[in-house]
């Protein structure tokens, strides 16, 4: 029981991290609150579902899901958002409008049912571990999530490109004067963030499922994580995901009546006592 | 009049006096009352007016609305049902604008106003508060010579019963308007006294020209 819950919480946290990381870096680097971020999850999940049905290949499905959402993110950034950097109200309308269009498109194509993506063959059983039944897929999720988190962390914290992104978050002007092409970097980060969220959609498919409305639900969770962790900070996104993952899992265990509100209670507490988030990125004020 | 090079602590001093920064130690006494812990608006109601080094105007409102706000600020009641454009306040505001030669701009949004005029309005707002002590933070920063002259004239026209505390970089302006002057360097008052005396003070000149200037005796 204890172990099961722990596995649940950790695997959920990993999924949340994949969701939130793109949103967090976009917010830190571009100061854009991308309300379409949840739609990447939804679209990725649906595309993954279809690909699994056609090809029965889960790996291919993750690739297809991520590629589709990457393309969508790239299109949105290049076609629209690029021109409205720094204009909050325009961004809200654009990203919310895109949310509506993507949601409606998915509804038209895939209908209103809730689907769960079948997990890859061989991972649909559970494992008896220390007297607890652990679904193997959750273990895969933890492994993939942890690897993904480690990879993102490594790129962000250890490579030259990652240092450039952090430099641009710190001081955009100075970064440009050091020869960093912040515009190209922004485009890359936005697209990559979309791809990772799409990947999360496919990976989350067997657990959370894909259904109309998942976009908004997931978006809100990602926003909460970003605010809890601190916008623009990789470690913050990880920590925020763990906090929210655990609060959700154990909250619904012990306080089932207010399970859906408990995440927000946690967020309100964090904002009141640590207004910059748990791990604030430097160079960001409360905007 | 406070003068001194960059980073000398002039603006910090202003922030502390007007209540935007708490002092680490010591106290601020305003008109005989200890206001060290009082919020900025409390000090303002006691008769402390200030301007900001970087214009702090209401950019989306018109010049007249800006002046109305300055006059509204010190009222006790917020006046939910009073009209902002009622003849009373608006009339007084227009009177003030006329007195300070800005009436022709009254309906222009401040955002569209020339910088020199914005700088004048910055001071005008503080005047409309009817302060007893007025802090001016670099009133001529970023202005052309002609605009600077306008500001100097404006300051010289102020009623003499307002005590003025001015931070200024432009020494010409400083000497023109000051009765009394202190030079700040690295958070310390280096010299204080009559402007004419300070002009001749070699320490003051050294601070402005940089230490060890070849031309210095």
């Amino acid at each position, binding site marked *: 029981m204890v172990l099961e819950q722990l596995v649940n919480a950790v695997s959920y946290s990993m999924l949340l991290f994949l969701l939130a990381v793109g949103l967090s870096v976009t917010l830190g680097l571009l100061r854009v609150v991308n309300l379409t971020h949840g739609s990447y999850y939804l679209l990725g999940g649906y595309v993954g579902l279809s690909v699994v049905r056609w090809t029965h290949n889960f790996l291919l499905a993750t690739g297809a899901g991520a590629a589709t959402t990457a393309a969508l993110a790239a299109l949105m950034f290049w076609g629209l958002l690029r021109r409205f950097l720094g204009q909050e109200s325009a961004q809200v309308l654009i990203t919310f409008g895109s949310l509506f269009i993507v949601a409606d498109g998915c509804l038209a194509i895939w209908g209103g049912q809730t689907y769960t993506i079948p997990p890859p063959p061989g991972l649909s059983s559970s494992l008896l571990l220390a007297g607890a039944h652990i679904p193997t897929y959750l273990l895969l999720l933890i492994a993939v999530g942890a690897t993904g988190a480690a990879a993102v962390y490594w790129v962000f914290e250890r490579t030259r490109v990652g240092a450039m992104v952090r430099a641009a978050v710190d001081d955009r002007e100075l970064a440009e004067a050091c020869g960093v092409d912040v515009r190209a970097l922004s485009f890359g980060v936005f697209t990559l963030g979309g791809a990772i969220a799409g990947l999360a959609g496919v990976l989350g498919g067997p657990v959370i499922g894909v259904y109309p409305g998942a976009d908004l639900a997931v978006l809100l969770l990602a926003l*909460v994580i970003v605010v809890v962790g601190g916008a623009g900070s990789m470690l913050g996104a990880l920590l925020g995901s763990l906090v929210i993952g655990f609060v959700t899992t154990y909250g619904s265990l012990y306080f089932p009546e207010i399970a859906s509100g408990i995440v927000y209670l946690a967020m309100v507490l964090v904002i009141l006592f640590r207004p910059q988030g748990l791990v604030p990125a430097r160079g960001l004020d409360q905007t | 009049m406070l003068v001194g090079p960059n980073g000398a602590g002039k603006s910090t001093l202003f922030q502390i006096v007007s209540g935007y920064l708490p002092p680490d130690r010591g106290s601020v006494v305003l008109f005989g009352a200890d206001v060290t812990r009082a919020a900025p608006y409390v000090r303002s*109601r006691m008769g402390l007016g200030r301007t900001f080094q970087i214009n702090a105007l209401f950019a989306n409102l018109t010049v007249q609305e800006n002046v109305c706000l300055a006059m509204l*600020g010190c009222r006790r009641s917020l006046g*939910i049902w009073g009209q902002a454009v009622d003849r009373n*306040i608006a009339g007084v505001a227009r009177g003030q604008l006329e007195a300070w030669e800005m009436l022709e701009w009254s309906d222009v949004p401040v955002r569209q106003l020339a910088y020199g005029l914005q700088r004048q309005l910055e001071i005008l707002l503080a005047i409309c508060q009817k302060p007893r002590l007025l802090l001016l933070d670099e009133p001529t920063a970023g202005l052309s010579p002609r605009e600077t002259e306008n500001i100097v004239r404006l300051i010289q026209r102020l009623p003499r019963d307002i005590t003025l505390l001015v931070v200024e970089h432009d020494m010409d302006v400083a000497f023109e308007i000051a009765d009394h002057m202190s030079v700040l360097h690295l958070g310390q008052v280096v010299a204080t006294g009559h402007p004419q005396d300070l002009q001749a003070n070699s320490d003051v000149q050294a601070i402005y020209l940089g230490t060890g200037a070849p031309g210095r005796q």
Partner: protein
Amino acid sequence: MRGQRAGLMAWGFRVMVVGMVLAAPLGLPPFYVNLSGQVLIYAILALSLDLLAGVLGLWSLGHAAAFGVAAYTAAFLAERLGVSWGIQLISGLGVAAALGCVGGLVVMRVRGLYFMMLTLGIAQVLWALAENWTGLTGGADGIPGIGRPSPFITTNSFYVFLAACFALNLLVLWAIHRSNYGLILRGIRDNALRMEALGVATFRARLGAYVLASTIGGFAGVLFAWQQGLVSPGVLSVDTSAETLLMVILGGAGTLGGPILGAVIVVLLETLVSTITARWMTALGVCYILTVLGAPQGLYPVLMPKVARVFATWGRWFGGIGDGKRARVEGDSPSLRRATHPEGH
């Protein structure tokens, strides 16, 4: 004297126009009368949110909290205790105001994204309570069977009641916009630091605005409960909050006409387009994006000058009421003047 008389006539003209617009749906079939009533309720809600989003520059993503809490209060009192509608209304407003007071003390400490998320958080907690505290709220099924206020039972008479409530709220908000207080709030939006220096207790002023917005939002909530006859957790959901915020942005924040226009467009698009095609969400999304491309500051500031010109022409026919300068100085002062120079951020 002549000025006074012209002013009176301008007033009469304005009341007449508003009255005519409000009365127009009465000639339509009941479906459209109900729809118009719904527009009016959402217009009140959007107007109240604009007090925060437009006038004060604080974007709440949880305005449904006030709306929903008041709706639930009225529903609970009507359904469980059967008190009269006056008490339902007053209690609904009171609870919304109290929520605004307590919530305001919390959310007014932060700005920007954090304000958005805090308001969202409060609304979501209330939403979760409504979903799960079945004893009080009826859970996901909500509270059904709420009666309409007694003399206004029929579709048309209830619409008249709604129209009167709308006019009342519009008048209150119009007065706030014009008042010294409204000017102070706009001053705080532009530069809170300077407002402090000018002697305004900015926190108190902002708190007051939050309570006001909450109360008026609550008014809309009570009306909603009466109109629908059913209150379910949906009234507290983020969908309601987001939709209201979108109405404000779409129409043009900081004006009186903008939120009303936004409410009209969103409610009509949702309802009418959905009768034609299932793809109404796409229509709404495209509408948002086109608005950004064509009128980044909202539709009202773009359309208003054109409409005003038409009205000025009509005014001349009615005997020099709406001519040139007088209309500009005396006419809907803050909203009209703001319309000509929409604010940037």
